[in-house]
């Protein structure tokens, strides 16, 4: 009961502290606001980069060309052998006549050239389009498929695909590093600002010590003040990121410049972004204050 009275007293004390030192509070709040806006934007950006690269990787396909003149049973046999491979996610058969039509649709020149051939004399080959689970071992899977009987050629953009995957990996890592670095910088900036604002209240802390307040008692209201400041500071970034992104998404019609670069649907990420921003603001505010007060508890 006694501890509870002290706690509730300290919480109301912290609200008073925020409003009676309003100019100092405002300094902390605006610092939190600006840095959290940056964190929010980088978070959304990294989500989109990840979304884009994952989509591209999913589209990578192994094209398997079969030998000319294979029978339907042989095609089935090859298909079942490929399906058995552990890394294969999906397989789709594309007969040589389907391929011919696709090519003819693409250009007038090919159309006239290929129209000389009937279905029987079609020089093209039957193909399988294969997607894999783990994009990093696409090369190994292609090698295995190549050894299967009646398989003539295997193409997956070797060389350029490996490069692409490497680049995507680096880009993803960079976005993670940027987000984490920004959160750390935010923590540092906010706790420093709070340190400065608390410095001007060291007299208050000193007096608390002198009238017999325990260290825990002195830290409590500053701890709650930090939470309040962090929370208030997170409001504008949350509004800016969530509504701003929703607006941008609607305005651009769900993709950036072209349909190749889709944007992440806002409803999928705004709650996570919201949570992260509040958590960073509140935690950093609370522990920043807590740490800053400790320095003045030596009187």
């Amino acid at each position, binding site marked *: 009961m006694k*501890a509870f009275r002290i706690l509730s007293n300290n919480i109301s004390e912290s609200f008073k502290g925020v409003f009676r030192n309003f100019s100092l509070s405002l300094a902390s709040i605006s610092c939190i606001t600006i840095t959290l806006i940056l964190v929010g934007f980088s978070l959304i950006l990294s989500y989109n980069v990840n979304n884009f690269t994952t989509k591209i990787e999913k589209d990578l396909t192994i094209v398997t060309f079969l030998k000319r003149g294979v029978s339907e049973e042989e095609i089935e046999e090859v298909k079942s052998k490929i399906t058995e491979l552990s890394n294969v996610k999906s397989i789709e058969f594309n007969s040589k006549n389907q391929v011919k039509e696709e090519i003819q649709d693409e250009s007038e020149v090919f159309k006239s050239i290929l129209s000389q051939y009937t279905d029987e004399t079609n020089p093209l080959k039957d193909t399988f389009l294969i997607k894999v689970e783990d994009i990093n071992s696409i090369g190994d899977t292609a090698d295995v498929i190549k050894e299967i009987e009646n398989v003539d050629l295997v193409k997956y953009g070797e060389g350029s695909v490996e490069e692409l995957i490497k680049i995507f990996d680096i880009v993803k890592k960079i976005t993670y590093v940027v987000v984490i670095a920004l959160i750390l910088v935010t923590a540092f900036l906010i706790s420093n600002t709070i340190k400065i604002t608390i410095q001007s209240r060291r*007299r*208050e802390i000193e*007096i608390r010590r002198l009238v*017999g307040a325990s260290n825990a008692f002195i830290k409590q209201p500053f701890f709650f003040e930090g939470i309040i400041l962090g929370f208030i500071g997170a409001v504008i970034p949350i509004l800016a990121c969530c509504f701003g992104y929703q607006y941008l998404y609607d305005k651009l019609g769900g993709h950036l410049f072209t349909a190749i670069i889709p944007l992440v649907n806002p409803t999928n990420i705004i709650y996570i972004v919201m949570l992260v921003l509040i958590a960073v603001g509140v935690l950093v505010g609370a522990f920043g204050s807590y740490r800053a007060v400790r320095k003045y508890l030596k009187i």
Partner: protein
Amino acid sequence: MQLIELKNVYKRYPNGVTALCDVNLNISKGEFVFVIGASGSGKSTLIKLLYRQERPTKGEVYVGGVNVAKLRNGKVYKLRRKLGIVFQDYKLLPKKTVFENVAFALEVYGLKKEEIRKKTLKAIEQVGLKDKTRSYPDELSGGEQQRVSIARAIVNNPKVLICDEPTGNLDPKTSMEIMKVIEAINEDLGTTIIMATHDEKIVNKMKKRVVIIENGMIAKDVMKGKYKNEGI
């Protein structure tokens, strides 16, 4: 055992200044003691040792049975709850009203609101500031501010009231009023008073025990002492 006991206390600051040298002092319950001395004589250091602002380099300092010298930083509040401290610069919280400033010393105990109110108003009445409870410190005169700080110091019924030059910033008339308040606390509540000062008029008029510090040592310790007679 004495309420306050200093045994062979030495204090040497990190910069090499020796502030106190082999000080022995006993103060018993209910006494009123002036500690006087020139600036730099060590009297402030002596006062600071009592509420563990400073630690002695050597020797022992007992306040109410607690060895202050060995008190850890985190446990200092236990000592300070037994003390009331009054400073030359009042040390009031500027953003709190008179009532809140005084009540603040009680809030750390987690008492009920009603109990805090009763005790706070009683302490404010004791120092004669009943009609200023809602004022902020910057709306008060120096004498009134010092009364607030005295009220804050006595609100938790301390055994000892330590005053570090409480009249240093006040004019003679206000100083005498403050002294009357402090004397009344000594007489009404039986609180032991230790007061550092260099106001000779006050010392001469009050005729209490006087401890004179010179060059970090106790030069004289007399009952009903006078400032001038001791040749400072």
